[in-house]
């Protein structure tokens, strides 16, 4: 993912981040973006794994809301916040930068690996139904 050069405001947030405190407005932003749709995918436009995960949902008859963070003015901060929420370093087995990250019904489900695991073990469909993404 292409990272935009740091703005002054995000630099100060950096200090806060290093102390383990989330910048409040970024979190709020993430939450509101995640609630826009039954299924929300935080993605990067050039990332093929992100393409795969949205393909998975579309194949199930669900149309997810996709936020391309590389094209978003606050994409850098949002990505960082998501990584923190995921609770891991960016070195997941999925893709560098930790994306895609999937939210269902406003709640975080996780990376492609988590989404596929939950689909295989049968927990994804009920989640989608509860969020109103799947009818019947």
């Amino acid at each position, binding site marked *: 993912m292409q990272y935009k050069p740091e703005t002054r405001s995000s630099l100060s947030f950096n200090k806060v981040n290093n102390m383990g405190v989330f910048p409040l407005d970024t979190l709020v932003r993430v939450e509101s973006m995640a609630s826009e749709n039954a299924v929300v995918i935080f993605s990067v436009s050039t990332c093929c*794994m992100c393409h*795969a995960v949205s393909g998975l949902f579309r194949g199930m008859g669900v149309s997810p809301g996709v936020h391309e963070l590389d094209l978003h003015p606050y994409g850098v901060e949002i990505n960082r916040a998501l990584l923190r929420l995921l609770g891991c370093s960016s070195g997941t*087995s999925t893709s560098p930068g930790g994306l895609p990250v999937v939210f269902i019904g406003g709640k975080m489900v996780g990376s492609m690996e988590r989404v596929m695991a939950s689909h*295989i073990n*049968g927990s*994804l469909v009920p989640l989608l139904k509860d969020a109103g993404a799947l009818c019947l």
Partner: protein
Amino acid sequence: MSSSSPTQLASLRDMGIYEPFQQIVSWRNVFKSDINDHSPNTASSSVIQVDHNIIKASYPSSSHNQIEAEPSSNDHQEEDDDGRNHDKMKRRLAQNREAARKSRLRKKAYVQQLEESRFKLSQLEQELEKAKQQGVYSSGSSYVGSSGSINTRIAAFELEYSHWLEEQSRRVSEIRTALQAHISDIELKMLVESCLNHYANLFRMKSDAAKADVFYLISGMWRTSTERFFQWIGGFRPSGLLNVVMPYLQPLTDQQILEVRNLQQSSQQAEDALSQGIDKLQQSLAENIVIDVVMGAAVENLQALEGFVNQADHLRQQTLQQMAKILTTRQAARGLLCLGEYLHRLRALSSLWAARPREHA
């Protein structure tokens, strides 16, 4: 060429022209020793014929062994000179013909040698392929990776994988004997667990190998040719797995039937999603190779490949585990036995195919 230089005389001597009247026999001998067996007899005899005539014409009455007379100052000799020049030219022509003939014969011999070598080479290549398929290379392998250097991590993987196959064989046999012997469910469950763990080990090994050389893994070079035929992102298709095993799991409860059907559908959907991702990767890579001079974006594409291989393996593992969850211990054991035997037979087919008698064209 008209001067009687030593080399000139020497070549003439070689050709037997030097001693004309001893001739026809010695000429024939000279030619025979020169020729390969392949030259057509007609050509040589006709050459001899012609040259024989030339000799007769060239040495009308001289008993002298000298071929070339030095240009004399005698006026008288002018006619002789003309005749001698004519002779010289004829000799030269004969020499040229002879040299050309020899050259053609040499070329023919060389070409034949080349063709024999080519045939030998293709035979060696076939043998090599056969040996590889039969796993001769799996111990002490000399894997040459995409960087051109021997990648020790990949060589280690090849070795580990050959051990894994042996171990797999053992576990499958264990389950077979256990099912026939009607052991307790608890013991059977332990065997099922260890078999699933064994698969998990394989995926772990593959994940390490993917870090070293993802293309090696994706090429399927470490597998047999028949396995490669069915290959999907560096391994077997999870949905294919289920199709192999399903018929042998009867009888299933209604609940189980529903769950198995769901598993078939979800694994198929996950497979399709990953396939879409790989397609997008290829497309993106193809575009980036063209438009990006430094190929930075293309390199990023390739880095993403490792992620896909890992996710595909993850899907395989999840599918196996979910299957074991749906089934009873005994059914799971039967399923794993069936799967193990299927993969074993698939590999065996590859060896059978490689060893089949073939007619050389």
